[in-house]
């Protein structure tokens, strides 16, 4: 138990009588719910399912790469493994993970609303996700998918012998889940804020989701129509992207990356939002440069749309276009840097504890630094001509997506688990898991930077023997990483039922979501809250029961 942070030490805490989890028990009460909190849990289950599918494929990939001659899997199987790893992880885990679970659960709570603006559409989003997921699962079972998650034409539309059409249709469908979620968030943040919750009192988690939603609604439709066209090409033999029929495969890449680059920001922005919540809470200090961090989220969302063709520097794209896109790519690095500096600055003068969420935040900071900075190499035209499509890229985006987004996701899950379930997870086990993850992650992916610079292309089933050392390191790390992912899965589930009762505000934190019981009632707040404080302000919140030095606090009430 964390004595450093938790104020409640007495045994008096009890779960509230009535909360969103015990208002109904039947399967119908879950499948027909319009409660954003229950929908978030539905997402939690389904997203975790896809995470483990994707994780299984990842393990197969790493095991197969243990030896240079790829003895474990046939080339076709290997190609299916990495494709389906990418598809399940990107479209069905990373993109919905933080927004659809944590965002869904906490945006209404954080802004003092009873629900999202469109609860039925929220439920519809989940069903759309499930239908899309079912199509994709079907494709995995009916012949698999071996096009790479990028579906480059004409490989995917003409030459592949795998079940491309159902997978593409599945992703097309899932896109609408993402669009509707983004739409719901945008409207909710605009119109559902409680009295006193001005734009600049919003938690940065909400700002980050605002920016994420902008990307979702503007980018996703483009990839949807693109995959729609690719499916038509595959099924009806049309020629939009098939050079044999006059189409242009490069056009597909433009359309695809118009979404799929910003999609990276769909994954990382919410994680940044989580970190922006965790750091002030465990440093007990206002986040440094609130306005700059909020503006940086929007800047990333907007500039993120201007850089897509940096995935295409070596397709024979015009040199002028390459220069423009490289220039814009360097610009998008700046707001991310600003965020990192502000997080670090927040630590100074704080009162820092090392509870599990904070460990994840530190982990995120380190890994995101590496991931972000290696992006500079790839955005730089002169280096990209060497490292493009090598393991350097693989390492870079795993540092962003796994080191960044998944660390943020797990950090957020730990941070809010007491609010979601009303119970605490076992602190020491969680800290160990966080460390195991950090070590395992670095061991897995750092060697891949070296591999990439040495010139090992990605998506290789066999490779020259001189690359083996680093591949063995990577596989060893992956085993540790797998353990690191299993641990939280087990103890969080355990804690949801048997953990110590957490109380309304165990950390304590300043957000509105912590003023309501844990777990919250179905309608979130008994009375509509009125916000009178700035975000992350520990000094003017006597109800938190902290020892604020300059200001005498009347009574140490515990919530």
């Amino acid at each position: 138990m964390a004595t450093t942070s938790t104020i409640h030490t007495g045994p008096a805490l009890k779960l509230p009588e009535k909360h969103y989890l015990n208002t109904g028990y039947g399967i119908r009460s879950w499948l027909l719910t319009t409660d954003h909190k229950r929908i978030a849990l539905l997402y939690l289950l389904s997203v975790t399912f896809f995470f483990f599918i994707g994780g299984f494929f990842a393990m197969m990939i790493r095991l197969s790469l243990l030896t240079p001659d790829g003895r474990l899997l046939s080339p076709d199987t290997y190609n299916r493994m990495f494709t389906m790893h990418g598809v399940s992880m990107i479209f069905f885990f990373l993109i919905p993970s933080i927004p659809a679970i944590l965002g869904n659960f906490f945006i209404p709570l954080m802004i003092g609303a009873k629900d999202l603006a469109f609860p039925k559409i929220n439920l519809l989003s989940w069903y759309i996700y499930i239908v899309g997921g079912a199509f994709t699962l079907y494709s995995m079972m009916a012949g698999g998918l071996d096009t790479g998650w990028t579906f480059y034409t004409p490989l995917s539309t003409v030459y592949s012998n795998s079940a491309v059409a159902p997978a593409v249709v599945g992703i097309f469908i899932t896109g609408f889940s993402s669009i509707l979620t983004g739409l719901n968030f945008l409207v909710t943040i605009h119109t559902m804020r409680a009295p006193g919750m001005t734009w600049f009192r919003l938690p940065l988690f909400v700002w980050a989701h605002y920016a994420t939603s902008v990307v979702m609604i503007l980018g996703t439709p483009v990839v949807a129509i693109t995959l729609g066209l690719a499916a038509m090409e595959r099924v009806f033999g049309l020629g939009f992207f098939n050079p044999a029929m006059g189409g242009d495969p490069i056009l597909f890449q433009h359309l695809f990356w118009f979404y799929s680059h910003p999609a990276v920001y769909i994954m990382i922005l919410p994680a940044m939002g989580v970190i922006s919540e965790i750091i002030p809470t465990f440093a007990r200090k206002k986040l440094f440069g609130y306005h700059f961090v909020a503006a940086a989220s929007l800047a990333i969302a907007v500039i993120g749309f201007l850089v897509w063709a940096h995935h295409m520097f070596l397709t024979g794209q015009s040199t002028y276009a390459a220069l423009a896109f490289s220039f814009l790519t360097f610009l998008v690095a700046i707001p991310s840097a600003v965020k990192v500096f502000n997080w670090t600055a927040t630590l100074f003068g704080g009162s820092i504890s090392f509870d599990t969420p904070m460990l994840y935040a530190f982990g995120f900071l380190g890994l995101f630094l590496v991931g972000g900075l290696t992006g500079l190499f790839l955005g730089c035209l002169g280096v990209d001509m060497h490292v493009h499509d090598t393991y350097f890229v693989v390492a870079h985006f795993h540092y962003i997506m796994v080191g960044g987004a998944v660390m943020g996701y797990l950090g957020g899950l730990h941070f809010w688990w007491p609010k979601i379930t009303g119970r605490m997870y076992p602190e020491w086990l969680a800290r160990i898991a966080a460390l195991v993850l950090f070590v395992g992650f670095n061991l897995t992916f750092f060697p891949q930077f070296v591999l990439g610079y040495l010139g090992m292309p990605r998506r290789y089933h066999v490779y020259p023997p001189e690359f083996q050392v680093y591949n063995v390191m990577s596989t060893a790390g992956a085993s540790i990483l797998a353990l690191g992912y299993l641990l939280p899965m087990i103890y969080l589930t355990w804690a949801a039922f048997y953990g110590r009762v957490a109380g309304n505000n165990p950390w304590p934190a300043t957000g509105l979501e912590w003023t309501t019981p844990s777990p919250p009632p179905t309608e979130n707040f008994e009375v509509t809250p009125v916000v009178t404080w700035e975000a992350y302000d520990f000094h003017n919140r006597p109800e938190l029961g902290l020892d604020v030095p300059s200001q005498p606090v009347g009574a140490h009430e515990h919530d």
Partner: protein
Amino acid sequence: MQSSLPFFPEQASSFAGNVDALFMFILLTCLFFAVLVSLLAIYAAFKYHRTSPGEVGSTAHGNMFLEVGWTAIPLILALGMFAWGAVVYVNFRTAPKDTLDIYVVGKQWMWKLEQPNGKREINELHIPVNRNIKLIMGSEDVIHNFYVPAFRAKMDVVPGRYNTLWFRPTKIGKYHFFCSQYCGTNHAVMGGWVTVMDPAEYAAWLSDESGNVNPVSAGEKLFTQLACVTCHLSNGTGRAPSLNGVYGAKVLLSDGSTVTADDAYIRESILQPKAKIVAGYQPVMPTFQGLVTEEQILNLTAYIKSLQSQPVPAKGAGIAPTSAGKK
């Protein structure tokens, strides 16, 4: 690659030094920031560690000077990286004039390469050291990518169009090349070796024709087989211009413009004869799209090249008179 834990691949082209220097510059800059931020975070974590359960942090929440500073400094550095990278890349995309041109055809899952004299190789490329090499690359099926790590250079090979990749090998040796754009089942084995040779050795290797059909004679045979010869009469009296001496010369087109009869023009004329009509001739030539393979085109080109030294007829050649100015 002698050491068992290599960090850099060999440097074997004129790009390698530039790319590595740029890489080191970015690496050091990034390391500086990564170490700085990490040290600051670790320092703060210990210095400001919570000492009592109810303790709160300070009320500091921002500093305009810092914000501007840590926006501006990275911006300047980033622009520096961009500019340096741009210089390296523009050089990489702009092939010099005096190149040794090698045609490369990628297909699932092999590389076919053809030397200027028509000598063909599969998954092997022999080139002389210190010579500018230009690969003119096309694909027969999906997108591939020709990548030589030791040269720090790669370029996609896209069906439906040509991409070029140039480099100047600087070190004699044998280097891996890979397909680095995922292209289906055997993507991982679609690679081979680039052998950089001493120019004299290269010349010897090139002229050693054992096992290779002479492309010129193969092209000559095709020229008859495909009935090209029935129109392109060498004396200039046919329905199509004589091809004697046309290679490398300027050709006057029906729209008044001129074009240099290089490999690309010849290829286009075979595949899409109507694209550029020689002045004074009718667009009667059929396309040979789908009728000739990439290799046959190269053979035909080699044959046409061999006609360079043949006497040009006074009438009936497409070569632009030297007085023909720009349009």
